[in-house]
């Protein structure tokens, strides 16, 4: 079998979600193709796509950290801090809304424009006349990638096509190979520890009610697929000190590698997150009534953290299909 056939097969496999997960919703005007996803991967990792020539999408979305950046809040190409932490892109194809608290941002194609051109704060710091948009027209790597991804376009080198390709790549980043997946979907009793199993019971119990915001196969409150209807998004005030506003409950898949936590990165560890929720959070007129506090013994806390660690999908963190193609 030729190398080219193997690569095409690998790309096709990437476009198919794991059997246990539903098919993600894909916008009608941007069907998912291997060629677009591959172009998107090159763009995602291209540091020329920033005002300082040093940052790319991958700077704030690092594969080994489940496509987060390990910082409390993200930092743009000009050194400006984002007010919130970089969100994980794992299983982002299933998100019914994007970003921490903007109910209007629902499509990845639309969202990609924010880090590219946003000024408050500046992230990649691009402008419509940035040199990068000229480079791609003559770059030996990009020329065939664009032409293959958008074969019917007279001029495929457009900003719209860039966002479509990046969105396609992001939709291929599916996490479904964690120990919890093997336990839950393959019924592999040995995949997770007894401690993690007890942690799962606690997670889904009435006193803790973690599942009420972090529910479904993606452990989130804004999950949708090709077969489900969009719902009004829910946002929550989690009772952090001085917190204003309400935020969505992001996926907990791979949560053990995405510290620090919460929208502002103010809690450094899972231990601290559980302490925060167990305490019932700080008094705040907007605090979600679901943040009511609970008792957690040290053993219970250990078990709950074991359960959360069982959601780590090492495969997605190291899958070469999602890695930097420029290396």
């Amino acid at each position, binding site marked *: 079998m030729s190398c080219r056939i193997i690569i095409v097969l690998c790309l096709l496999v990437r476009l198919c979600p794991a059997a246990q997960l539903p098919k993600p919703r894909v916008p009608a005007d941007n069907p998912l193709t291997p060629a677009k996803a591959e172009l998107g991967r090159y763009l995602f990792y291209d540091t020329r796509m920033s005002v300082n020539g040093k940052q790319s999408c991958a700077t704030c979305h690092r594969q080994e950290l489940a496509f987060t950046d390990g910082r409390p809040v993200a930092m743009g190409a000009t050194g400006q801090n984002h007010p919130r932490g970089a969100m994980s892109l794992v299983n982002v194809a299933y998100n019914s809304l994007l970003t921490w608290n903007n109910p209007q941002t629902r499509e990845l194609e639309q969202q990609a424009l924010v880090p590219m051109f946003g000024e408050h704060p500046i992230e990649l710091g691009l402008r419509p006349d940035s040199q990068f948009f000229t480079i791609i027209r003559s770059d030996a790597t990009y020329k065939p990638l664009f032409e293959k991804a958008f074969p019917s376009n007279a001029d495929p080198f457009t900003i719209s096509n860039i966002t479509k390709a990046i969105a396609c790549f992001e939709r291929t980043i599916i996490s479904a190979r964690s120990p919890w997946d093997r336990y839950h979907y393959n*019924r592999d009793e040995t995949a997770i520890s007894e401690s993690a199993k007890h942690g799962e*019971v606690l997670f*889904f*119990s009435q006193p803790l009610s973690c599942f009420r915001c972090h529910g479904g196969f993606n452990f989130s409150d804004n*999950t949708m697929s090709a077969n489900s209807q969009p719902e009004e998004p829910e946002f929550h005030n989690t009772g952090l000190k001085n917190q204003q506003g309400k935020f969505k409950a992001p996926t907990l898949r791979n949560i053990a590698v995405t510290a620090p936590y919460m929208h502002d990165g103010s809690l450094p560890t899972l231990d601290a997150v559980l302490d925060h929720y167990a305490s019932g959070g700080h008094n705040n007129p907007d605090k979600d009534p679901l943040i009511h506090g609970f008792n957690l013994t040290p053993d219970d806390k250990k078990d709950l953290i074991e359960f959360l660690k069982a959601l780590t999908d090492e495969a997605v963190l190291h899958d070469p299909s999602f890695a930097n193609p420029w290396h």
Partner: protein
Amino acid sequence: MTNFLLRCTLLAALSFGTSAAELTIKGDIAAPLVLKTEEIAQMPHETVSIPEKDGTTASYEGVPLREILKKAGVPFGKDLRGKALASYIIAKAKDGYEVVFSLGELDAAFGNESILVADKVDGKPLFDYQGPLRLVCPNDKAGARSVRMLETIELVRLQK
């Protein structure tokens, strides 16, 4: 060999917590009842497919709640009239979660709700956080009354 088999049996039972699990039906009824999960497994089962909010579908197998309640002497059919219609059950979970259903909801002549006491999902035993028994309410739009880790059902009569 006997020891090995015994250990395997115990491990299999512990893995889903099925051996010691029971469903207690109590309250203002003539024949309070404790059913082991093994006994429930022997009763006639029905299957319902439940679409989840996230687009997945789960197929639950279980015994109609009405049949279990009948076994404990809870009034249905011709006995469910007059003051008996002012009766409800409390379904209670191991973690303290409780929900209520009126007997009229369950009776074939009134609501005729086909609520199941499920012991399997997609052909397999329920996970610890769901079971070993749970309610499945196919006609509820929200899932909150489909009590997981179901342990007790209590009948309350408002009028006697």
